[in-house]
């Protein structure tokens, strides 16, 4: 009986809390709408700031990751902010798991992807890209005493990489090596650190970060070499197939940021 009374009291409190929260919302709603309505009525204001939603898999330091306070930081968030200022749009970054990030774009859950996406021919078939904003190479991480120094040394070894990344595709193309796909690059690096795989492949910037910057890994891991490829690989912002409008906004903004020298400042901040 006692328990029932306590439960009932808790239930009541919960319901009261809910209805109060709803009231508050109801009060706030008209206030929030009012200025928007005024703005619309005002004669020809400055061209309206558009909001562009970007999906970002924030597990890819130093390109995009979460800091200790759960803020999205890194090279590309900084670049997007500068681009937003130059191109008069408001970038909203949405942390999204890599697995399904392209499916989400196709489904229209966000307008663009800013997640160190390499521009590849296969991807171009299903999505459009902005101009390239970064050149990447694929870096091979190994344990320091492994003796792996060239591609030939990887024969018969197990290589980990994040699923659906160019690093994973590269791992699959190395003769005689077994490619293993992980949900996140961090899990592959952890497995490498624990000695369960022989190498991990990811973007060189990320590989540098894990091998040389990370307190936990820097004594054990090292960047063995960077994969040689015939074609240069670039990162771009991916948008839905046929979304020329967003591509135009992004390209113009990117050009402005590069011209003003701001790009180099941001680059220096993250890669020095």
């Amino acid at each position: 009986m006692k328990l029932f009374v306590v439960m009932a009291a808790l239930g009541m409190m919960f319901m009261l809390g809910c209805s109060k929260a709803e009231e508050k919302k109801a009060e706030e709603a008209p206030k929030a709408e009012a200025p928007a309505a005024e703005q619309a009525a005002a004669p020809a204001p400055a061209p309206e700031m558009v909001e562009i939603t970007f999906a970002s898999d924030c597990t890819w330091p130093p390109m995009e990751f979460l800091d200790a306070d759960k803020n999205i930081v890194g090279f590309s968030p900084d670049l997007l902010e500068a681009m937003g200022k130059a191109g008069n749009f408001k970038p909203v970054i949405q942390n999204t798991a890599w697995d399904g990030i392209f499916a989400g774009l196709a489904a229209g859950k966000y307008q663009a992807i800013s997640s160190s996406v390499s521009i590849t021919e296969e991807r171009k078939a299903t999505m459009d890209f902005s101009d390239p904003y970064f050149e990447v190479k694929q870096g091979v991480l190994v344990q320091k005493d492994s003796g792996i120094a060239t591609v030939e040394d990887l024969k018969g070894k197990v290589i980990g990489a994040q699923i659906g990344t160019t690093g994973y595709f590269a791992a699959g193309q190395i003769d005689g090596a077994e490619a293993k796909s992980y949900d996140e690059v961090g899990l592959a690096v952890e497995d490498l650190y624990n000695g369960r795989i022989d190498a991990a492949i990811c973007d060189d910037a990320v590989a540098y970060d894990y091998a040389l910057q990370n307190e936990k890994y820097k004594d054990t891991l090292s960047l063995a070499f960077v994969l040689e490829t015939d074609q240069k690989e670039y990162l771009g912002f991916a948008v839905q197939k046929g979304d020329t409008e967003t591509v135009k906004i992004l390209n113009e903004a990117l050009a402005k940021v590069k011209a003003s020298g701001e790009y180099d400042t941001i680059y220096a901040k993250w890669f020095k």
Partner: protein
Amino acid sequence: MKDNKFVNINVGDGAAIPDKKDRGLFNAWWISLIGGLGIILFLITTKPDPYLDILKFLPDGVLVTFEVTILSIIGALILGLITGLGRISRVRPINLIASTYVEVVRGIPLLVQLFYIYFALGQLFRELPETNFVFIFLKNMPPLVAAVSAMSICYGAYMGEVFRAGIESIDRGQSEASRSLGFNRSQTMRYVILPQAWRTILPPVGNEFIALLKDSSLVSILAVADLLRRGREFASVSFNYFEAYTMVALVYLIITLILSKGVSYMESRLNYYVRD
């Protein structure tokens, strides 16, 4: 059945006898199987481009899923039986250990347990000295072993509860009767209680088997190349998300149906009242 003379003490007082009308072609099982296989056949013949390619990509994943599931079922059954008996044990420490195991494991999601056993313990093992073969094994624990242990430990807790409930469902008079016939406690359990309880236990245990098979998809987080991961790998390269996951769903359905048939066959074997 050689134990019939003991079980028959209770004839007429057992669980409800299932009637036979559910057999034949038009029950849910056949509809699902023919439907699933039909859709797969239809898809691979009309659109072989992604669908047949996906199907060809999956077989080793299916094998891994089978491997994980069957090993985990065996592990979970053993752990479950031990736990179930431990939970009804009158020896206080045994009871306490079994109960604590159930409470703790049941309270932690399987995905977290998988992460913990593989990645968190992996880091701990890393620091162990390579002094004996156990440490060396733990240090190089393959993902499959980690996956099977985590799933066995997790499902062992659930099955322990099923076993306990099944054993407790047998009337007290049964054990009293067998004790007065001169059986000791373990004989009572082996020849009287468990054979009867098994009949009550089997349907929920079969349910756990099927749930376990589907949950085995979680092990793909450890980079174990199971059915789901194979599907994801295909989708990640070709961007055929819809097609790949459709195929993966259908293949899981077919495997689950096969497993459920196996369980219902075992059930019918145990229902000796109506067995043909």
